[in-house]
């Protein structure tokens, strides 16, 4: 069982089960986790599924691709730990992943 925890801007935490191979964005939507809008449906084309990867997970999750880095220009309050959650695929190695959602997506 793979679990992902989402912490919203107010600090509330939600842990849900994630399917291997789905994305962190899809997992949020499927479980009605607020704070992720995903307007474009996962095409890396809108920057409304922006998350901050928790410090202990950044090395494991890895860096954004060039295209994702470009798209992050359209996100707000981007930090070194910023990723677009539609571009993070859930793998067994990500069991226990913690991400935080920003105050505003779009």
């Amino acid at each position, binding site marked *: 069982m793979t679990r992902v925890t989402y912490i919203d801007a107010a600090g509330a935490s939600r842990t849900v089960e994630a399917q291997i191979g789905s994305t962190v964005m899809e997992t949020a939507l499927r479980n009605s986790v607020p704070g992720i809008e995903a307007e474009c449906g996962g*095409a890396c084309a809108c920057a409304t599924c922006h998350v901050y990867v928790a410090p202990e997970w950044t090395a494991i999750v890895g860096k954004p691709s060039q295209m994702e880095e470009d798209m992050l220009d359209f996100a707000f309050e981007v930090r070194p730990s910023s990723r677009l959650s539609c571009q993070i695929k859930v793998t067994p190695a990500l069991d226990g992943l913690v991400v935080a959602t920003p105050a*505003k997506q779009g």
Partner: protein
Amino acid sequence: MSETISTDVAIIGAGPAGLFAVFELGLLDIKAQLIDILPKIGGQCAELYPEKPIYDIPGFPVVSAQGLVDNLVLQIQPFHPTFHLGEMVESLEVLGTAERPEFRIRTDAGTTLEAKVVIIAAGGGSFQPKKPPIPGIHDYEGRSVFYAVRKIEQFRDRRVVIVGGGDSALDWVLNLYPVARRVTLIHRRDAFRAAPHSVNAMRELVAEGKIDFLLGQVAGLKGEGGQLSALTLRTENGEIADCECDDLLPFFGLTMKLGPIADWGLDLHENLVPVDTQKFETNVPGIFAIGDIVAYPGKLKLILSGFHEGALAAQKAHRYIYPEKKLVFQYTTSSTSLQRKLGVG
């Protein structure tokens, strides 16, 4: 004030659903005009993912989003639709009766359209500029903070700060620097998604000392009575610096907002428009809705669903537009009358 345009059907939204509705209406001798807030045809397909392949359009194992839009435009050519692009519908007024509906539409560009039927094919709503969550920014909007440039002259001799790394940001840096007192570009990183020639032109201006480029993100605004005097910049290593400015232009792309549709007297359910699945008509007779914006039991937000919905809406629209005519169902494969309309008969 421009004169009023009369048409059979006004379609709000020029994405795939709205475009194909033109075809289904055209086969029934119904003329349509389309209005879209984007400056181009194609809705989300053109704006969000033009290069992405789509795999679930019947008959096309794979087609790019822009390719689909281009084909739809070709397919509706025989019906000569009129497009009003870059215009947002601000108001929708009911003029007629439930039996003989008539509507007046006004756009933010001053266009007035009168139509017997309205089809809302607005997808996720209207694309509007993303507004950065900088504390107090609303107090400056329209006076010192702008999300689009309408008149270049407005920025003459002003200290203009432009934020972003895309084409809009870079284009306005290049267009405003000859006019403004000083142009400063702020971006979170020293890499840009904008077209390389714009980036090169910008870098040359920076090297020549004609404009400034600052690395960082805007953290706060300073000013009085809606007029900015400076903004606070947070650099990558967390340092805070002030940057003097009169006007701020943030370019963070577009987001979809329901917008004025909320004010048109339509029933709404979680920002969607409920319709029946026989006619795709809303609670207001004569106003239809199709595509991603509708809600009904079992609704799927697929392009192919939008096509089906447009075909059925056209059937009922025919009853409003030609109340005395009986509609005979025909196939494009065999009907010479349909083929003549398509210019192939």
